[in-house]
């Protein structure tokens, strides 16, 4: 096994720095027994080999020397130039071979998603440090390799470069890992938060769900069905069924995904059964327990998997907004014993407006 790739099932705690946040999380979930589509990480070692083994580092440094970060046009031109430099190099032979081996091990020309997995995760909004690129429905080893390179190149969008400049991060110091993961044939997909994002209520799990792949939910292109599940009783206590006009589905022939109008009958129907809503909530709750803090989970129901085993987690990351706010909220004192009872009688809860 090379240092350049690492299957999710083998990612250990020591590997987290070189596989990035997303792959580390996928690795942890896989090993904790959570159903996660199989795949492997292309490590930061592979990225470093690309930089060092091809002369790319020198080319990037040379380009950066001529970049005026205060000038939008100059920055944009540099970004384009660097990305073109990425595309002009083949991957080092050992990296190329490692990816081909691991991809072949997943199956014959299996459709996969290729996603960047950034390493600068210690910043709350670090996702901008390395542009989070995702390529769906990639088929064939050549295409996988090309898209791994695209992910790397995406570190050098004008926006990502500008962000690193603003936050005094070295332009070449931020490394990137890439996740290559079996493509989910998503019937339905979405996001689950183990805290109510509107008010920080930790007794709630809030689920957004729509047809097809979850990207349209995440990007806000569709208004998803919204379910609120009471976390401890595991009961649906609120549901808002929306008009889900469009879905992202695979175009197998073109080896890509395509947006399609949802037919009239399905668009206003509840996209998950109640049992599926509860299954998603249980998955999110399990991930919260494993990670010991509220989570933001991407999930999907995979049409290729048998009923009851078709729910997969695609990503789980800590919820950061409320985690900080709740800690700051001072807790009011409470009366105990008989004084507590006097208080409860004098001001019963049902009387509060």
């Amino acid at each position, binding site marked *: 096994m090379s240092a350049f790739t690492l299957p999710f099932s083998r990612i250990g705690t020591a590997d987290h720095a070189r596989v990035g946040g997303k792959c580390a999380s996928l690795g942890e979930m896989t090993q904790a027994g959570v159903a996660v589509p199989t795949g492997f990480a292309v490590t930061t070692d592979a990225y470093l080999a690309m930089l060092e083994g091809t002369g790319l580092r020198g080319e990037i440094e040379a380009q950066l020397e001529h970049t005026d970060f205060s000038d939008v046009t100059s920055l944009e031109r540099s970004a384009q130039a660097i990305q073109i430099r990425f595309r002009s190099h083949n991957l080092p032979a050992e990296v190329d071979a490692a990816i081909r081996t691991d991809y072949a091990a997943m199956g014959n020309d299996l459709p996969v998603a290729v996603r960047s997995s950034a390493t600068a995760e210690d910043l709350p909004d670090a996702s901008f440090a390395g542009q989070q690129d995702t390529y769906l429905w990639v088929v064939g080893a050549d295409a996988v390799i090309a898209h791994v390179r695209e992910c790397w190149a995406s570190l050098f969008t004008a926006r990502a470069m500008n962000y690193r400049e603003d936050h005094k991060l070295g332009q070449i110091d931020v490394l990137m890992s890439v996740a290559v993961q079996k493509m989910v044939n998503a019937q339905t997909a979405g996001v689950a938060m183990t805290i109510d994002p509107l008010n920080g209520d930790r007794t709630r799990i809030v689920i957004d769900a729509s047809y097809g792949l979850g990207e349209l939910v995440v990007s806000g292109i569709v208004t998803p069905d919204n379910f609120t599940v009471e976390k401890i*009783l595991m*009961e649906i206590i609120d549901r808002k069924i929306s008009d889900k006009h469009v879905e992202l589905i695979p175009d197998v022939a073109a080896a890509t995904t395509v947006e399609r109008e949802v037919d009239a009958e399905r668009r206003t129907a509840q996209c998950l059964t109640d049992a599926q809503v509860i299954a998603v909530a249980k998955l999110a709750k399990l991930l919260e327990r494993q990670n010991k803090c509220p989570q933001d989970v991407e999930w999907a129901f995979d049409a290729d998997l048998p009923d009851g085993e078709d729910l997969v987690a695609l990503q789980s990351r800590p919820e950061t907004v409320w985690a900080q706010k709740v800690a700051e909220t001072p807790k009011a004192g409470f009366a105990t014993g*008989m004084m*507590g*009872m*006097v208080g*409860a009688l004098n001001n019963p809860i049902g009387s509060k407006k």
Partner: protein
Amino acid sequence: MDAKTPMFPSAYDLKAPAGAEGWEELYPYYLKFQPSLREKEDQKFWFCDSQHWPNPFKPFDTMTVEFAVKCLGQYNTRHYLVPPANGVDYRIHNGYVYMSPIGVDPELIGDRVPQFMERAGHYFQNWPTLLENWHKKVKANIDEMEAIEFEKLPDVVPLEWVKDGVGLDNTTALTENYDRMIQLIYRTWQYHFEFLNLGYAAYLDFFGFMKEQFPTIPDQAIAKMVQGHDSDLFRPDDELKKLARLAVELGVADALKSGSVDEALAVVGAQANGAKWVAAWEEAKDPWFNYTTGNGFYSTDKYWNENLDIPLGYLRDYIVRVQAGETIERPMDALRSERDRITSEYQEMMTPEAAEAFQGKLGLARVVYPYVEDHNFYIEHWSMGVFWKKMRSLSKMLHEEGFWPTEDGMFYLNRNEVRDVIFDYGNAWATGGDWAGPTHWPQEIDRRRGIIDALATQAPQPALNNPPEVITEPFTIMLWGITSDSIKNWTGGDDDNSDLNGMAASPGVVEGLARVIRSPDQLSEIQQGEILVAPVTAPSWAPVFGKIQATVTDIGGMMSHAAIVCREYGLPAVTGTGTASSKIKTGDRIRVDGNTGKVTILS
């Protein structure tokens, strides 16, 4: 609602239905809205307690509301001095009872606190020993009532009495026994509330604490944390389940399946293992068949031990299910582990300081909560069962002596008139003349029966006058589930709406066919998998809970019987919908959401 048009009508504007004229004479003067007090009475908010008293009272039966509500009040007002709450005032109007909680002058609340802490505190600190004593007191009353017999007066005073120089006659015991029965049940109703108000207070404290910690926590989640004890209230049903299993094990099940109770028992008794089963049946009867299909508040309530066909009917259903391989026992272990899981998961979300307070309040709530369920068996079922049995025997005896043409005639008299009848009976027996009752009561009872039947043709108003801006009285909230929100449901809202809103009393969502049940006599109509819709349910309906998918009631809060039973049986329930039993028809397809309290009529 504007200032001049109250949300609910005034009692003074509510006319009696045709044929019920003169109903006022049937009830005591102190329970009526007196014309001279209109201005004062119209200022108060009154809600109808159809949860406990859904049908118009016969004069004798008003005793149940009088004793119950008086005794509830005495503990708040005079025993424990519950700081903000005195008792509940009540009136009978057009045959139904309306309640109005009496608050404490805000300036006096503070002075009551130290007294409450000392008095109620003593009970909380000594709960187990005091409760043990309670069981002894209640059982002693039951035993004393059981020992009392009402016998016809003999032709002559027994010779031994003459020879022993007793110097008294047989009317003495008759008069004293009647008075004693009333005294005993009056005492029993005091015991009923000795612990109940405190049980609610501790629960309310725990409840309020949880709502402060987790503002959106469902009421039912809080309730689930204190349940899961082996309640005596469900013991009668459990006994039937045990008997069903035993019958299958002993091979006598098929013999039990047909014929009257006597026939079935005779067939079983003749079988090899039959005697063993019959012995188990006899053993279960005492005390567990002291159990009513009603709620204990009516002289017409049917008790299992006097109507053995009722438990046998349930038993037969259970036998069929046992033979089909079903598990009929309540999942007690699952309930308890679920309770523990829920408790610990909420606690994990608390700060250490809050978790400590939580443990204290939960601990007390769990100590006191079993009483809230258990007392119902000992008072409403067992004590009241014995009381009604004895009262029916007295009524029957007087019927046989010619006082009234039907066995139940006595219940059309109030309890003081019955005293008069007993004197009339003994008086004429002594003088050697004729008792006057037989020429007075038959037509009077007929008249009263006509009035009560007419009253029953008109449903009560849910409430009278204007509710306060906010309901603050703690027992009103806990006992009757009356909050500012639930009152809004009573006003009906949009009539076209196919949705009904109530209290989310027990979790889960189901769809199914509705079965509207208005009286326990209809319980046998329920088919497997239906949804029970009723104005109100009683805990004794438990045996049908194995058949149904969910329950919807018009009346009741989170501690109402339907809510408690559904949580124990793991069925969804929506209570306090106001109008479900009239809006929903048997056969309607409905969706019951016990998580949100919404009931939808689908078709």
